[in-house]
């Protein structure tokens, strides 16, 4: 039985309040205003008062408008028919195709029992040395690209998506600029990947609250495909917009903000989404690669900060390349012990040496005379940046490792690298060019 009311008592922000009974916490309602229908969700019950968060925003909603409670939570259609389709932030078709109404499933299902999780074990090869060699991406990982607006993060996202050997790609767009949306869609299309993709896209022009549903819908669909044995890669861009929507609602609800206006439960809210990344025993997996833009490139901003504490690493995309410092894949150690014996030590040594290079650069900038050893580092830095860091470089891992050794031997004596003798014996290239 559906309950219908038409006396709204309070409207503020995107929240409307009315008096109703027998309403369930989390239940969905439809608010019909002159602007059309919008979903709304019960976010608080206080005696007879029911607080509804209106997805399309409260603009134009009148106190006399009709509110129809549906008696159920947000649901979404799930089937193979989703593949190749494009929807908006609440699951309505954006591509002119038919609406899907069959086989409805609830979103935001329960958490996976930690006892059922598996140790991650397969590497996702991307062909990008800064990822494969230095911070390998791993199936079932949740990892974010930390960047600023203007950087080519959506290009990087698309490139990883196309390279990765996964069964299904789900793109969740939040506050996407329209041309970014078109870029992502067209790239998937032109590479023939659209037929194995599903897009849930909320653009910057859509009502803010609608973007809150995007991660939940994308991840619920991903989880269900994974349970049916599919390897799913979920791309979420840009989570900063998701957090800002949360902030807006928290402020409307007069919650005391904890940090720069963001609610105190920002961490838990983000974690609830990111923790959906999982590898199911004898079934498929969900891997999450998200984008987090940092205002003013400030990693201590609450959004990147909380994200960093939740994800299993981050890629810093800065000046069009993935920085070796700060970038970190926390699952890399599960996979890089099985690739090649030199993978780990080479990776560590190269980053340490690159850190010294940065120091030398500083010294140089201050006008100090460069010593012989300084010059070696300078050469190293240039070779490293040109041959491995440059985002246009694309090569398989083996080749990236060999390139790494070649760079080292072109710049240093073996014992300057801090790599164990046994590995030096095995991998140090024969012919050595010194400075």
């Amino acid at each position, binding site marked *: 039985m559906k309950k219908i009311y038409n006396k709204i008592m309070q409207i503020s922000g995107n929240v409307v309040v009315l008096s109703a009974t027998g309403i369930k916490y989390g239940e969905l309602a439809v608010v019909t205003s002159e602007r059309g229908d919008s979903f709304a969700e019960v976010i608080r019950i206080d005696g007879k008062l029911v607080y509804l968060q209106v997805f399309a925003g409260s603009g134009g909603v009148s106190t006399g408008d009709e509110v129809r409670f549906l008696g159920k939570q947000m649901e979404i259609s799930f089937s193979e028919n989703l593949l190749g389709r494009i929807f908006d932030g609440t699951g309505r078709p954006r591509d002119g195709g038919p609406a899907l109404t069959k086989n409805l499933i609830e979103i935001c299902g329960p958490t*996976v*029992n*930690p006892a059922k999780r598996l140790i991650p074990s397969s590497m996702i090869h991307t062909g990008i040395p800064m990822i494969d060699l230095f911070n390998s991406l791993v199936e079932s990982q949740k990892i974010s690209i930390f960047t600023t607006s203007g950087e080519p993060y959506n290009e990087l996202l698309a490139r990883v998506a196309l390279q990765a050997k996964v069964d299904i790609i789900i793109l969740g767009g939040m506050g996407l600029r329209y041309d970014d949306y078109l870029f992502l869609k067209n790239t998937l299309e032109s590479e023939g990947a659209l037929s194995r993709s599903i897009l849930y896209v909320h653009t910057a022009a859509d009502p803010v609250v609608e973007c809150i549903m995007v991660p939940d819908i994308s991840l619920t669909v991903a989880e269900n495909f994974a349970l049916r044995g599919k390897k799913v890669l979920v791309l979420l861009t840009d989570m900063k917009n998701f957090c800002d929507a949360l902030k807006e609602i928290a402020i409307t609800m007069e919650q*005391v903000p904890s940090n720069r206006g963001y609610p105190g439960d920002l961490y838990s809210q983000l974690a609830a989404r990111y923790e959906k990344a999982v590898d199911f025993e004898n079934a498929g997996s969900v891997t999450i690669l998200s984008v987090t833009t940092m205002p003013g490139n400030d990693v201590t901003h609450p959004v990147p900060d909380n994200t960093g504490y939740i994800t299993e690493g981050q890629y810093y995309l800065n000046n069009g390349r993935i920085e070796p410092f700060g970038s970190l894949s926390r699952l890399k150690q599960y996979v890089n012990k099985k690739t090649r014996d030199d993978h780990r030590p080479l990776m560590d040594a190269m980053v340490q040496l690159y850190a010294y290079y940065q120091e030398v650069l500083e*010294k140089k900038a201050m006008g100090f005379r460069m010593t012989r050893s300084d010059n070696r580092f300078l050469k190293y830095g240039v070779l490293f940046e040109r041959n491995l860091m440059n985002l246009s470089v694309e090569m398989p891992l083996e080749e990236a490792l060999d390139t790494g050794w070649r760079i080292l031997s072109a710049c240093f004596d073996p014992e300057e690298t801090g790599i164990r003798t046994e590995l030096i014996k095995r991998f140090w290239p024969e012919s050595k060019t010194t400075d």
Partner: protein
Amino acid sequence: MKNRGKIVGINKNMITVEFAGDVKQNEVAYAVLGDNRLKAEVIRIRKNRADLQVFEDTRGLKTDDIVEFTGELLSVELGPGLLGQLYDGLQNPLHKLAGELGFFLHRGKHINALPEETEWAFTPCVKPGDKLQAADTVGTVKEGSFTHKIMVPFHLSGRYEVVEIAESNKYSVKEQIALIKGKRGQLIPLSMMFEWPIRIPVTLYRERLDPAEPLITRIRIIDTLFPVAKGGTYCIPGPFGAGKTVLQQITSRNAKVDIVIVAACGERAGEVVETIKEFPEIIDPFTGMPLMERTIIVCNTSSMPVAAREASVYTAITMAEYYRQMGLDVLILADSTSRWAQAMRERSSRLEEIPGEEAFPAYLESTIAGFYERSGFVRLRDGNTGSITIGGTVSPAGGNFEEPVTQATLKVVGAFHGLSRDRSDARRYPAIDPLESWSKYTGIIDNQSRNHTVRLLSKAHEIVQMMKVVGEEGITLADYILYLKGEFFDNVYLQQNAFDAVDMATSEERQKKIFSMIKEIIDATLDLNNKDDARSFFNRIRQLFLDYNSAEWNSNDFLENERLISVLFLKYRKAGKEIEPYIFRQALVESDMDSHFIRSKTAKIKKGEKLLMVKEENEEDI
């Protein structure tokens, strides 16, 4: 008769309930949702309304739904069978839940913590007529490699007399093993298990002792420079990705204690998986048993209910107190206490309490202090000692230690292992910053040598800063060598590779040995005539030491490397030790290790001053 109420308000995981009879603070109640009963705890009472935090997802509840009060405080089960278990924050066994529910944690499902089917070989140690009180032993069972004492339940006050005691045989935890009689003649049957409310500390010991004995973690920088004591407390604050969790994981594996309780509190679920899967396979060299048999995991990860996260650290510490009562040394590793504090903050905000700094509740400090105070090295009534050591990670917002949780924690702990972004970025793991960290405890190396090396590091750091200003050519050869010595000590001793099978754990014996070798090199005057020679010498000796560190103790490789090191060293060693006063010349760190935190700050300022001074001195040279 069950006391019941009905829901009048719902706000995320908090429900407001109207009731008629009596309701207790922290009492457990269940919200009835169809066939499901959602566990909740009373956290505030005002007139005839109680606010309850629900330990599960509240979606679907509505006003007028029934809430059943139990009259019981939130408690855990104590008895044989806790070791090796994986629990959620409310002590539900997760493996069993997985067996019944599959992949997901559906709400409203509770399973008893202790396996009821398991039978334990019980040996009595009292006879009828014996006098007993709470926590006295009535018998023992063998739990893994431990003698597990079956004790008189902690909540029984006063004296009792044994009426009946079971004979040596196998019993399950719920079977009666004794009957005791109180002063007023009341008869109380005892089984091998009982319950204890998690928010109330167990204090059934004779006295609390000074935590004087080091707890060996087999992590060099900790044991040598910033030791932890049995019964002490320490914290590991650090920005994300700096290595807090990895540090705790290797500690849980290698620490020399009887029992380790891992409290994975509001962090990633994936991080406990390795422990769950690998610990049953790794054999503990000291007991010969799988590591899992000395481990309990309490796992309430970030996407599990927030209210249960708040409770989980208490669940962990209560089990620790139970094992300490048997005379065992227990180590609790809580990752991360910030998530626990945040759970408190979420609760406080829903209660609309007046917020303090960064919206944390005003009682944050006293709550943190209260938790760490449950640690301690104690003498029990039977004369034995037991200990609880607590190590908690802190995840400060923005990596800035000047925030409420870090500051409140620093006030109450005995050692501070501060991780720094600079060190982790440079892959100098474990990224404990030797110039910021401190410990009030005594470790395996005498305090004088400890301070001596910290001074060297501090001096080396100064020289690095100086070189940034005046360049390598602007400093003397002696300073340059000091800098290289500091780097060398950092590289081969402070840094430790967590993923190398050998280097991962360094025994006390081995630490003492390498430390003395390194100290000799550091203290020696070396025959190095220019900076290039110096650099090349230290590169070579570093290389040898790295190989040495990953060679099995006393293996051929090990001995061979040791020989090579000493050959190289002797070749460059000059007689005399005149370098030593040089390090001390501008000593920054007082030997008094008491006001450490303030000290590290003043040291920083002093460093700045020094820097300016040095610059002036050198200006004439340039």
